[in-house]
């Protein structure tokens, strides 16, 4: 009974420290998206290279694809861009670009300067489609399955680790089903 007097507060303290320790390594900017496992929000947007043509998620049904949200003004997009260019060369999965709150000339020049890994980029000039997709920090990357359901969301730049460990294994698994 006497030991309990000391062990009980100690126990509480250890639990508290445990919570705080785990909290140290979590990024408060990564808010889990309610859109994961929900159908991809519909849109019909003009294509960046040819605004007379449009594209929407329904055109991509039947295949696994990535939606990468980018902008010419986005600094961390430059960090992940070489990875996307590399990924595009392997032809594993089509990447669709969502040119978010940008202008067509600036977007085109950015792709000319940095390489264009996108099968198609679509123009979301006023950011409305971005809101539908719950975008709040560019770059963001979504994995969409064959039925048009969002299966994963990456907030912030893709790193080689999460591309190899998360995104690509998920894409391969979804392509099999």
């Amino acid at each position: 009974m006497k030991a309990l007097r000391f062990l009980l507060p100690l126990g509480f303290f250890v639990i508290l420290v445990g919570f705080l320790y785990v909290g140290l390594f979590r990024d408060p900017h990564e808010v889990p998206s309610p859109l994961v496992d929900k159908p991809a929000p519909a849109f019909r947007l003009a294509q960046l290279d040819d605004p007379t043509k449009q594209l929407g998620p329904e055109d991509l049904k039947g295949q696994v694809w990535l939606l990468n949200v980018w902008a010419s003004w986005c600094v961390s997009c430059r960090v992940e861009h070489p990875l996307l260019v590399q990924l595009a060369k392997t032809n594993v999965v089509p990447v669709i670009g969502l040119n978010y709150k940008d202008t067509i000339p600036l977007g085109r020049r950015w792709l000319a300067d940095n390489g264009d890994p996108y099968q198609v980029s679509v123009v979301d000039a006023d950011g409305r489609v971005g809101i539908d997709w719950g975008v709040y920090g560019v770059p963001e990357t979504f994995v969409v399955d064959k039925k048009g359901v969002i299966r994963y969301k990456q907030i912030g730049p893709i790193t080689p680790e999460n591309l190899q460990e998360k995104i690509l294994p998920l894409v391969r698994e979804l392509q099999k089903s």
Partner: protein
Amino acid sequence: MKRFLMAAGLAAALLVSALPAHAQTDPALEARLKTLSEELRCLVCQNQTLADSSAPLAEDLRREVRELAQQGKSDAEIKQYLVARYGDFVLYKPPVKPTTWLLWFGPFAFLLGGALVWFVVLRRRGGRVNHGDVPESIPTADEQTGRARAQALLDETKGP
């Protein structure tokens, strides 16, 4: 005269710039939008409300909220619209549901636990006093001489 005109022009320019951009719309809607955007979180600068934040996304979301309100959507519908896209995190006041029970009721549980510990400790200590384990305070020798001196001093001043 020239100086006066310049001053008047400057004053007019300041007045115009101070006017809110949407001054022409009705005040009831403005008031509603203000309260609503104070209950919503900006996701870019997370400790600011949608009303406080000047981040581009906050501007877009304010525009979206305004349009939804103008379409006749209720506050609950507007919040639902944002929660569907950004999750419960956009709400400054999280909804009460099983995953947030700890958040809502945890502090009261701690309060109750503290009260319980306090009660138990008091009872134990109270029991001891009643059984006479702890003697009533008896003045020590020092205190006794001190009191005697104080009394002597008092008597002295009272004297004739």
